[in-house]
């Protein structure tokens, strides 16, 4: 796809999902908003579903990533292994680089 935003993240990068709550057709599940995760892979670039839902072109296409979250970071009462994970597809405009903390 020629009309696509350039990817900003690479496999292994630490990211935070935006804690935003816009109305409309959004494919970022609530349970990962504001959560920290790691880029598992870049899936390619796809027209933005938030635009497609309203019969617009969704261009430029947004890079789409699979982001890996530790279950224990999502649910404080998670009952299972400390290394269990959930992987969720998230479009780039929902992701920010995690700030380095000292």
């Amino acid at each position, binding site marked *: 796809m020629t009309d696509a935003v350039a990817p900003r993240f690479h496999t292994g990068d630490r990211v935070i999902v935006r804690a935003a709550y816009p109305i409309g057709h959004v*494919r*970022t*599940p609530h*349970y990962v908003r504001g959560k920290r995760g790691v880029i598992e892979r870049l*899936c*390619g670039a*796809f027209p933005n*579903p938030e635009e497609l839902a309203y019969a617009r072109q969704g261009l430029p296409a947004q890079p*789409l990533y*699979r982001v890996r979250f530790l*279950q224990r970071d*999502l*649910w404080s009462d*998670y*009952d*299972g*292994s400390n*290394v*269990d*994970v*959930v*992987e*969720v*597809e*998230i*479009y780039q405009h929902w992701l920010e680089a995690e700030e380095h903390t000292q």
Partner: protein
Amino acid sequence: MSHDLDHGHVHSPPRPDQDDSLTYFRTMEMAVRELLIDKGIITAVEVRRQVEDMDGRNAGRGAQMVVRGWLDPAYQQRMLVDGTKAAEEIGLDVGSLKLVVVENTATVHNVIVCTLCSCYPRMLLGLPPDWYKSRNYRSRVVREPRAVLAEFGTVIPEGTLIRVHDSTADMRYLVAPMRPQGTEHWSEADLRTLVTRDSMIGVALADSP
């Protein structure tokens, strides 16, 4: 003609003539479909054929990929790198599906869900089961996967990592279950019978011989 209502047994109440409900979206689908047919854009036969094709797809297609991977480690690797290409390589038409295949191992168990709706690799598994679309499964398997899997009779050892895949956007997922022990000399066709739909969603293991 008389009819004796008191004749020694009880009749159940008559079933209503209307045996389903006309929802807003069903009405809209019918209106759009009829318009498309009236305008000559599609025909009723094409619609019927599509429904027939959808109903005709089954998990045997996914099982072909899984078993090919069991028999050919190089194919398994290609499948994990690019599921769509690997499906096409063995002659499976997956349409516009972008397929990610995830592999169960001795230390990792994968399970698939779509928490937002009911995304599912229909081209490889057919229509999803009702429970896959239920709010119960969708809300719980991301939050307590071990409990949900146990309800399917699948108990994952504590030391095995569980990786839940939430199919929220453009990818579709297929779990490649582990090959059961005791199947070393089995034919490709026999092996396929062990790879059930549920084992490729990840709520079960492949059947054991």
